């Protein structure tokens, strides 16, 4: 019953904030508070948006980037979450591999580019590889940390009821950290989107990240901003989708308030 006004607030309030933001942007460019070359105006951005749509490029770029992000992210979720669960459960393994994982966690996708090319050539594959490299380690690490801080009582109960191996993993460890895994997935999904710009540096001929490079190469700040806006909005929407996971009944306990 209380859902409806809450839902409304969830939509209306952000709208207001966005409007205020647009207004500030508009005033800055309208009153020339900063030189024009420092900040493209809304009108320019809208115009270049229209151009891109008309050229049919935009839809294609969106699909291409979504595809790369999704594939890379899904692969790292499929590998990273189980890896994190597994490492979290085995103390010695965790000690052994944490530094290694941490090491790789700190490496920029930009630094991986030459290797991406050497191993995966150009096109979609290196982009997917870069997204994978950027999201796998944070996801595994967060899952691992979450597992390591599961209240010990749950493991005691699990032991009492003879949960072992895979069953322990799927019936106890996984659901116990699911709320945190969802949060970690949202964070790493963010990283995946952030990396798309670096990933599409590598010989891609389409995609939103490529669009930004292209715009920069073409000295079109307005087009670059258009692509930034699209990346931001798409990411936002996808995050909204992911956040629906927090409404699952068996994770509600993790978001108590």
């Amino acid at each position: 019953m209380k859902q409806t006004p809450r839902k409304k607030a969830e939509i209306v309030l952000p709208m207001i904030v966005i409007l205020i933001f647009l207004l500030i942007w508009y005033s800055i460019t309208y009153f020339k508070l900063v030189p024009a070359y420092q900040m493209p105006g809304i009108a320019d951005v809208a115009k270049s948006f229209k151009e891109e749509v008309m050229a049919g490029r935009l839809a294609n770029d969106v699909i291409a980037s979504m595809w790369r992000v999704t594939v890379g992210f899904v692969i790292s979720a499929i590998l990273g979450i189980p890896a994190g669960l597994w490492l979290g459960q085995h103390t010695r393994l965790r000690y052994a591999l944490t530094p290694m994982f941490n090491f790789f966690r700190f490496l920029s996708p930009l630094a991986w580019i030459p290797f991406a090319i050497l191993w995966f050539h150009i096109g979609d594959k290196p982009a997917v590889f870069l997204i994978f490299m950027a999201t796998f380690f944070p996801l595994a690490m967060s899952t691992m940390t979450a597992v390591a801080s599961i209240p010990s009582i749950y493991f005691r109960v699990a032991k009492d009821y003879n949960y072992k191996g895979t069953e322990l993993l799927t019936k106890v460890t996984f659901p116990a950290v699911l709320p945190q895994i969802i949060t970690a997935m949202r964070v790493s999904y963010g990283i995946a989107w952030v990396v798309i710009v670096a990933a599409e540096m590598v010989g891609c001929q389409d995609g939103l990240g490529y669009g930004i490079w292209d715009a920069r190469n073409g000295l079109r700040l307005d087009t670059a901003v258009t692509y930034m806006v699209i990346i931001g909005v798409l990411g936002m929407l996808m995050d909204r989708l992911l956040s629906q996971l927090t409404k699952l009944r068996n994770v509600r306990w993790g978001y108590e308030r």
Partner: protein
Amino acid sequence: LRFHPWSQKSAVADKKDVVHEGPNNDARRSLTVGYLPVTCHLTCPVTDFASKTTKTSTNFNSQRFTDFPTVVDALKAKQVQATFMIAPLAMKLREDGAPVKICYLGHRDGSEIIIRKDIQATSLRDLKGKTLALPSFYSNQNLVIHKLMEDQGMQPNDINFVILPPPDMPTSLAAKAIDGYFVGEPHCAKAELLGIGKVLYLARDIWPNFVSCVLVVHEDLIKEKPDVVKDLVRGIAESGKWAEDHRAEAAKLAAPYFRQDQKVLNYVLTSSPHRVSYAQLTPTDAEFQQIQDMAIKMGILKKRLPISDYMDRDFIPQTIVAAPIPVDKIPDKN
């Protein structure tokens, strides 16, 4: 907020990969000039070195960048007021209304079409259906290769073009991700030295007196400190003349500036005088007219501008003598 907690050491820091012994104390003025570590921009570090080792009135500090868009942004923000840049991009910048002028050239030639060693090809036509990498749509390489394709009766989409950052080109070629590329040195020599690529065309085979990069100067600097600009253009001209005749020394000089392998630079500069040249750096109208025409045809530029609109020849010296660089002062960093 202090951004340099190690200011104590900053003097040392400034020196770290610079081969001279510090700024020329006689010179009252100084100017930062932007460049990328490619042989097309070789005259920039040479001028830097020359300004500090010979008697000049301006200290030129060369600042290395990683890519052209960043250079452009720095120029717009007036963080550098003079820089080397690919020619069509400079024209585009001018067309967009940025207050910049082309004052001089950086080099002649200096680019090659490199193909994989195992590809049997003698002309562009043999590359039909293959993938060729270019550094940017706004590069002269892009314009020229399309011109060449047209000359050889090919359709624009007979070759797959991909845009790649030049440092990734040899890597891509080695991985067989691409079949060839057209870019400035030393990225071509690298593939040759690695034994993975061979030269299909030298730039001069396609277009005699090819230029890819020019010296771009902010108009404010031209207005406020014409003497400095004059010094700069003369410095580059004299450096060019010196480099033309002291190729091995130039490679040795530039290697630490570029932080590149001296062997590769040496190969570029000395293996054949046809690879790159630093003579005749005075631009001609015809050349630029031709670049502009091609760029308009490619849709890179919108409208034809009078040459004088983006070119400023006032600073080009009448007589050019080689910079008296003390060869013995070039340290051997390798």
